[in-house]
Structures are given as C-alpha cells and as structure tokens.
C-alpha cells in the first residue's frame, strides 16, 4: 500500500468538510461580529448580558447541569447492574437503547405530555390509588425530565463501555487484598470508569444546554432557554446577526467540552 496517489480518494470529503463544516462555522463568527450593514461590531455577542438573554443562559446551564447529574446518577448503577446481572449485556443494552430511536424523538418527547398532564397517565394511576395528584407539565421539572429521557443514552453508552472493559481480576484482587465493596468501587471501579463518565458528561451537557425542542414541547412555551432565544432570532425575527452572536457564545461552551473530551480520549488510548 504505497501508492501515494490513493490519498486523493479523501479529496471529495475534504472539499465537502471545508465547504459544509469549516466555512459555515466561520460564517457564524462573521455574522456574530458584524451588524446588518456588514461593519464590525461586538454588540451581537455582548447582547448576552441583557436581562432576557443572561436569564435564559443561566437557566439553560442550570437545567443542563441538573440533567447531566441525573443522567449520571441513573446511568451508573444501570451499567454496573448490566455488566453483572445480564449475560451478553452489550447486545441487550444496544437493543433497548436503539429501538426507541426508531420512533420519532419529537413524538416520544410529546408523549410525555400525555403521561404528565393534569388528566394524564400518572395522575390517572395516582387517582385510582387515592394518592395526591401532581402537576409538573409546563413547569421546569417536566423539561428536566424530557432532557433526562432524551439524553440518557448518551450517558449510558460511554459509561457502559468503560465499566464493561474493567478487568474482573482487578476486582477480585481488590477483594483478596481486603477491600470492602465500597472501597473497591471508590478506588478501582470509579477511577477506571472516569474516561467514560467524562465523555458521557460532555455528551449530555451540550445537547441539554442548547435544546429548544424539549422546552418548547414540555415547557408550554413559557420557559425560554438559550436555544429558544436563538431559534426565535433566526426563524421569527430573521435577525441573523443577533442569532449568530448568541450561537458564538454557545460555541465557547462546545469548544471547552471538545477539549475535555479530546484530552480524555487520548488518555484512554494510552
């Protein structure tokens, strides 16, 4: 395999990625730092400190931190259980997580309205059992639940990947050397699963930070996240410069998480 000319097979993709990945991102930055007439300005980016925008951003950060934390709390025990309880767990895991994806994700998110609403499924069951009803639809907890539901697979898969690769002999060795289960977890399992956890955290944090769909569907349009603000700037107000300015702010968060992922990916290889 030493015919160097064969490397030009990658040329179509390179041209494609320059045109549809790199240039578009440069365009976002260009629009972000220019005004309607094309002259330089920072006002689109500094617009983030206006009351509405900073509130939306802070709310988004709070939501995505909470969603990421909850996903980790739910996913980690799940992965530990899967590796110990289920035989052939990797195909079981892929099956239960792929299958839902074939039902449209908007529709699945929308179905939570049904489950959560005043006369919904959960309240139906609670009423039947004579328990107090609860209303979370169109309120923050519904949005949080939607995020956890939509992005849980992004946490489960990388965590599972690193947990399932832990050598069972290490656990036995820890036990033989007198570690109790808690110590084994703290000093063997957790450190070894860290790359997967970090990868899962970034994979959940970014989409929950930037979503506008979940807040639209489960928040009743009353709760504005930063994604909603950007979406409205582009589709309703057609103010592309302002929208690009806020998108540029989001890109900062994304770049940070890319660096974190890249760092841990590399350490994972070693």
């Amino acid at each position: 395999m030493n015919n160097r000319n064969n490397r030009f097979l990658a040329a179509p993709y390179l041209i494609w990625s320059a045109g549809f990945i790199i240039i578009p991102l440069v365009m976002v930055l260009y629009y972000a730092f220019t005004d309607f007439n094309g002259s330089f300005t920072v006002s689109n980016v500094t617009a983030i400190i206006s009351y509405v925008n900073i509130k939306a951003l802070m709310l988004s950060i709070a939501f995505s931190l909470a969603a990421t934390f909850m996903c980790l709390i739910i996913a980690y025990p799940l992965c530990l259980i899967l590796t110990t309880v289920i035989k052939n767990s990797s195909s079981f895991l892929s099956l239960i997580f792929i299958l839902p994806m074939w039902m449209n994700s908007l529709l699945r998110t929308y179905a939570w309205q049904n489950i959560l609403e005043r006369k919904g499924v959960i309240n139906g069951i609670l009423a039947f059992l004579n328990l107090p009803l609860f209303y979370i639809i169109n309120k923050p907890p519904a949005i949080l639940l939607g995020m956890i539901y939509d992005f849980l697979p992004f946490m489960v898969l990388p965590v599972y990947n690193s947990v399932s690769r832990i050598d069972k002999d290490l656990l036995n060795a820890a036990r033989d050397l007198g570690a109790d289960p808690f110590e084994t977890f703290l000093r063997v399992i957790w450190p070894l699963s860290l790359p997967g956890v970090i990868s899962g955290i970034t994979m959940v944090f970014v989409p929950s930070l930037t979503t506008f769909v979940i807040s639209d569907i489960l928040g009743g349009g009353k709760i504005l996240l930063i994604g909603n603000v950007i979406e409205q700037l582009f589709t309703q107000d057609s103010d592309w410069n302002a929208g690009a300015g806020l998108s540029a702010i989001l890109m900062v968060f994304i770049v940070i998480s890319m660096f974190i992922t890249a760092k841990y990916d590399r350490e994972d290889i070693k």
Partner: protein
Amino acid sequence: MKTALGRIYLTLVLIFLYAPIATLMILSFNSSKSRAHWGGFTLDWYLGLFSNEEIMDAFRTTIFLAFLSALIATVLGTAACTGMQFMKRRDRSIIMGITNIPMLNADIVTGVSLMLLFLAARVSMGFTTVLFSHITFNIPYVILSVMPRYRELNRSTYEAALDLGAEPLYAFFTVVLPDLMGAILSGFLMSFTMSLDDFIITHFTQGPGFDTLSTKIYSEVKKGINPEIYALSTIMFLVVLLLLFFVNYKPWVKKPAGKIIVTTKTQVVVTSGKGGS
C-alpha cells in the same frame, strides 16, 4: 437479593424508556381525536393514514432523504477512509479532528451555520439544502465506523493480491472491501437512523412547503398531533422491531465484537476513542 434489586432497577429504567412509546401506540387506537381521554378502540387512523397525502408525502420525503443522504455519505466516507490510509499520521489526525466537529457540536449551531451558508450563497432552501446538511452530519458516522475496521485489517492480504498480479482496484474490491462490508453497512444504518430522526438541522435548512415527519410533527405540536401520525409511527416501530429480530439471526450484520449496531452519537465517539486517531 442483589440480583433481584438489580432486576427491579432495570425494569424501572425500561419502563421509563418505553412508557412514551407504549402511550403513543395506545393512542394510535384511540377513537377520540383528543389525546386526553380514551374514546374506545378504533383502526380508523390506520385506515385513514394511507389516504392522507400530507403525511404520506412527509413520510416518503423522510425515507428518501434518509436513504439518499446515507448512501452518499457512505460512499464519500468510505472513500475518505481509504484515502486516509495512504496519508501521514499527522494529516490523518487533522482530518479526524474535523470529522469530530459535527459529532460534538450542538445541533442548533450546526443547523444555524448551514442556514447562514445557504443564505449567503443565495440558494433557495428546500430538499437539496436539507439533503446536503444531512450528508454533512452523516459522513462522520460512516468514517468513525469504517476507520477502526481499517486499523484491524490485515494489509498483507491486499499486498499478496497485488503480488499475484491483481490490479489495485480489483484487489480492493475482492480483498479489502469484503472485510470492510460490516463496518460500512453499520455506518450506513447509523446515518440512515440519524437522518430519519433529525429535527433541529432540518428545521434550519428546510424551505417553505418542505416537510419531513419531524418538521411536520413539530408544526403540529401546538395545535395537537393528528393521530394518523401515531399510527404511522407505530407501524414504523413494529417494522423495525421485526427487522431487528430478523437481522439478529443473520451472521453478516455482526460487528467485530459480535453485537448489533448502536446508533447514537456517543457509541461512535466511543468507538473512535478506542481506536485512536
């Protein structure tokens, strides 16, 4: 005891994952158009579905778009992987870095950036712009699926074929390609699924009068979704369930690890991390 607790936990997670799906399936048989109450069993939505041109149009567009974008992405991605085998390590890792951008970037930023590109190029938005966008976010799935397989490939078989007088192209198609086929197919299926399920990027790059199922559902969320869409989704879901069941007994779809293909962003990123770049 521990196992029992484990199973209870698993069951709870499963209920959480599948409750919305069960809800939608039940609603597809609900004769009341309002989703708030049960009006009795009916098959009307299933019967009405096939004569609802709007929904069937969106369905055909969605499937055609997913197929075409996945196909083009598979060809471009596989060619790119092949080309990268002949590159210096440094060039290869730069390209893999670029490939990671659409995977790690937020969908809204990808969508907005493509929208700005099309606006600046004064292209009128419609099927073509959406197709180009879908190809763009699909190629990484193909590359991240095929690259690790290339790394495991035994190069001496290809060289042996050349030594025995095979043309490079012939050697590629008879010796290399069959080994890659599983990875290529899994990249194609991932792309197909991602395209099928995408809403955000389509939302920013679609034009007026263009709808996929996702954008149609989104526009109906406020006024209430036509139950015929539940019926269609139920059918699609059951078809895939059957296919998966069927495919699981076919040896040729097996990945190297012997598991079925996982179609989410993370899995691919994890695979790429494992292989290194």
